[in-house]
C-alpha cells in the first residue's frame, strides 16, 4: 500500500503543528468559536451530541496492521475504548476532548494518517472497492488512481471552498461495490476495444434529501487525462454551483438543473482548455504510486480446498468470503454486525486483533468497507479456519455479509446533532428479530438513516428506513427497492411511517411476504422489482384480525 514520501509527511506534520496552535489560541481566548469552527472541521473535529467527534480518514479504505493498532490505541487513550467505522470507509471517535485533539493527530501522523478531507466543503476522502487488488473481476487495481486523486485534491487551492462537500469514488470492475453512481463523481476504470485503459465518468449522483443517480457524462477518458477531466468537472461545478442555498448546492442539483447535456458541454469545453495547460500529473508519479500497490508475495501452487467440517465455519465461508484473483487465496469480510450489536462499532481490543490478524494472515492489509465492515483481502484458504476461529472467539465471526442482519446504520440521534431519530436501536431490534430467518431470506441489504441527510444510505437499501421527527416523537418511514450496485435504483416510500416497534414489525411483514412470493433464486430486490410496490404495501399495512 501507499507509503508517504517526504512531502506527504511534511504536509501532515505541518498540519498537526498548525492545528495545535489553533487549539491553543481557541483555549486561551484569542480565537472565537466562530473563527475556530471551520478550522477544527478542516481537521475532522466536529462538536456532536455528547462531545467532540473526530473523524479519521482512511484513504480508499486501505489500512495496514500498524495503522489499525494505532486506531485501537487512540480508542483507549483518548476515547472510551471503541471506534465507529463509517459508510465513508472512515472511523469516528465519539468522546474526544478538544485539548487532546492535537496529540491524537500527532499520533496518527506517526503512522501516516490524518483527519484531513473528512469535513468541510472540499473534495472528501476518496472511496473505492473494498476488494481492490484482490478482486477477480477488476480490470486494474483502482487504488493507485484513488491515491492520485487524493494527492491532487488535498489542499487543492481552487477546490478548498466548494459550494458544498464533494465525494468521489473509483472502481475498476463491472460489479459496483462502492455505490459509485451515488457519488458526486463516480469513476469506473475500463478498457476500450483496443485494450487501452480509461475512465468512465458518472457525475451528479448522491443521496441526502434529494437522491439522484449519476448519469454517465463520458464513457471513456484516456487514463492519462483522468485528473484533467476531474478538474474540468470540478471547475464547472465551482463556477455555477449554488452558494445561496446549502440544500441546492451539491453538484447533483447543478447537473439536474443545468441539464446533463449542457453540463457535459461545459465540462468538455473546460477540458479542452485544461489540456492546453498540461495539468495532468506526470506519468512517473503514477508509476511511483503504482509501485506501492504491487501484488504482495503470493505463493504459487496453493490448494483451493477448504475443510468445511465445522458447519459454523462453512456458513461463514459461504456468506463472508469472495473469490480472489489468485488460486489458493480468498478475500474475507469481518462482519461488525453481531446479532443485536451496534453496526460499525468495534472495541479497541477488536480493532487491535483485526490488525494483528491482518499481519498474520493477509499480507498486513485491511480494508474498511462502506457497509461498515472490515475486509482481510488476501487470506490463504489453508489459513481460513484458523483465522475464523480467532475472529469468532472475539465476537467477530458473524456469518451475515449482505444478509438482513448486515445493516448499515448511521449513528442517528444517539450521537448525531443532525439526526431526528435513533437508528441504532432500530437496527439492533431488526437484527435480533430477523436473525433466525436471515439465512433463509438470503441477500437483503437494509440501510437506516436517522435523518434526511442519508448517511445510512437508506435510499439505496433493498429495504430502507428513514427516521423523522414528528412533533418530538421518533417516526420511521419505510422504503423498498433501493439498490447501490450496477443496477442502481432509489427506494420508494411505502406509505405512512411507523413507531419504533412498528417499523420492526413492518420489516418482518415485508420479508415474510417476500418469502411467500419469491420465485426460484430471486433475492428480495428481484421479487420487489417483479411484482412492484402495491402487493408489498398491502401486506405491510394489512390490519391484523384478532380472533375472539
Amino acid at each position, binding site marked *: 500500500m501507499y507509503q508517504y514520501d517526504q512531502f506527504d509527511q511534511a504536509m501532515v506534520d505541518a498540519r498537526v503543528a498548525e492545528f495545535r496552535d489553533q487549539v491553543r489560541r*481557541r*483555549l486561551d*481566548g484569542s480565537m472565537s*468559536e466562530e473563527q475556530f469552527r471551520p478550522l477544527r472541521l478542516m481537521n475532522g473535529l466536529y*462538536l456532536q*451530541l*455528547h*462531545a*467532540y467527534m473526530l473523524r479519521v480518514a482512511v484513504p480508499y479504505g486501505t489500512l495496514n496492521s500498524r495503522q489499525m493498532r494505532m486506531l485501537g490505541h487512540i480508542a483507549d487513550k483518548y476515547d*472510551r475504548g471503541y471506534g465507529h467505522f463509517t459508510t465513508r470507509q472512515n472511523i469516528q471517535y*465519539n*468522546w*474526544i*476532548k*478538544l*485539548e487532546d485533539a492535537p496529540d491524537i493527530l500527532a499520533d496518527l501522523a506517526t503512522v501516516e494518517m490524518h483527519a484531513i478531507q473528512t469535513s468541510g466543503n472540499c473534495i472528501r476522502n476518496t472511496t473505492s472497492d473494498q476488494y481492490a487488488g484482490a478482486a477477480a473481476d477488476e480490470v486494474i487495481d483502482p487504488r493507485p488512481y484513488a491515491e492520485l486523486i487524493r494527492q491532487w485534491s488535498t489542499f487543492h487551492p481552487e477546490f478548498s471552498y466548494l459550494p458544498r462537500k464533494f465525494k468521489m469514488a473509483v472502481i475498476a470492475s463491472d460489479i459496483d461495490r462502492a455505490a459509485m453512481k451515488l457519488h458526486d463523481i463516480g469513476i469506473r476504470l475500463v478498457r476500450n476495444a483496443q485494450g487501452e485503459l480509461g475512465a468512465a465518468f458518472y457525475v451528479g449522483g448522491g443521496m441526502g434529501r434529494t437522491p439522484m443517480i449519476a448519469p454517465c457524462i463520458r464513457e471513456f477518458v484516456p487514463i492519462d487525462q483522468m485528473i484533467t477531466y476531474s478538474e474540468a468537472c470540478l471547475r464547472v461545478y465551482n463556477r455555477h454551483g449554488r452558494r445561496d442555498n446549502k440544500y441546492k448546492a451539491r453538484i447533483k442539483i447543478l447537473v439536474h438543473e443545468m441539464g446533463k447535456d449542457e453540463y457535459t458541454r461545459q465540462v468538455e469545453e473546460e477540458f479542452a482548455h485544461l489540456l492546453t495547460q498540461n495539468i495532468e500529473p506526470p506519468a512517473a508519479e503514477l508509476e511511483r504510486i503504482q509501485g506501492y500497490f504491487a501484488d504482495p508475495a503470493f505463493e504459487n501452487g496453493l490448494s483451493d480446498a477448504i475443510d468445511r467440517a465445522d458447519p459454523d465455519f462453512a456458513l461463514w465461508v459461504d456468506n463472508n468470503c469472495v473469490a480472489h484473483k489468485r488460486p489458493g487465496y480468498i478475500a474475507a469480510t469481518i462482519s461488525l454486525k453481531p446479532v443485536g450489536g*451496534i453496526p460499525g462499532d468495534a472495541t479497541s481490543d477488536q480493532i487491535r486483533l483485526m490488525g494483528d490478524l491482518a499481519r498474520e494472515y493477509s499480507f498486513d492489509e485491511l480494508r474498511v468497507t462502506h457497509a461498515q465492515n472490515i475486509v482481510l483481502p488476501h487470506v490463504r484458504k489453508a489459513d481460513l479456519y484458523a483465522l475464523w476461529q480467532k475472529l469468532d472467539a472475539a465476537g467477530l465471526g458473524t456469518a451475515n455479509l449482505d444478509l438482513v442482519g448486515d445493516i448499515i446504520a448511521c449513528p442517528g*440521534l*444517539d*450521537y448525531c*446533532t443532525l*439526526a431526528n431519530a*435513533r437508528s*441504532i*436501536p432500530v437496527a*439492533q431490534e431488526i437484527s435480533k428479530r430477523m436473525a433466525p430467518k436471515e439465512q433463509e431470506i438470503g441477500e437483503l441489504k437494509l440501510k437506516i438513516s436517522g435523518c434526511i441527510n442519508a448517511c445510512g444510505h437508506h435510499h439505496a437499501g433493498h429495504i430502507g428506513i428513514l427516521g423523522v421527527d414528528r412533533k*418530538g*416523537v*421518533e417516526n420511521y418511514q419505510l422504503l423498498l427497492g433501493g439498490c447501490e450496485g450496477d443496477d442502481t435504483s432509489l427506494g420508494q416510500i411505502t406509505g405512512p411511517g411507523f413507531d*419504533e416497534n412498528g417499523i420492526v414489525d413492518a420489516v418482518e411483514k415485508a420479508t415474510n411476504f417476500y418469502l411467500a412470493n419469491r420465485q426460484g433464486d430471486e433475492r428480495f430486490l428481484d421479487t420487489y422489482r417483479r411484482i412492484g410496490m402495491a402487493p408489498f404495501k398491502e401486506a405491510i399495512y394489512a390490519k391484523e384480525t384478532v380472533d375472539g
Partner: protein
Amino acid sequence: MKILTGNDLKTGAVTWWDGQGWSLHVEDAADVAEHGDEIAARENAARRVVAPYVIDGEVAAEGVRPAHIKDRIRALGPTVRLDLSLKPAEPDAGTWVI
C-alpha cells in the same frame, strides 16, 4: 421553564447551567427564564462553554428534564450505551428519555 445547555469547551462534555455555573447533571439545571441568551453570551465569551443554547424544560418527579428527545438523550448519553452514561450503575437511568 427555560434551561440553558452547552458543551464544556475543553472536554466537550454536555453541561447545564445551574444558576451559578455549569453542571454535568441535568437535574441541577436552573430556570433561566428570559435571561438564557444573555447568560449564554457571557459564558461563551468567558470560554466556559461552547455552543450554548436555550431549550424548554420541565420539572418531573426526578428533577428537571428537557422537553425534547434530542436534549434528553444529550442529558443521558447514548441510549444504546448506558454503560457510558453518567449513572452506569443505575439500570433504570434511561427510562425517562424515550
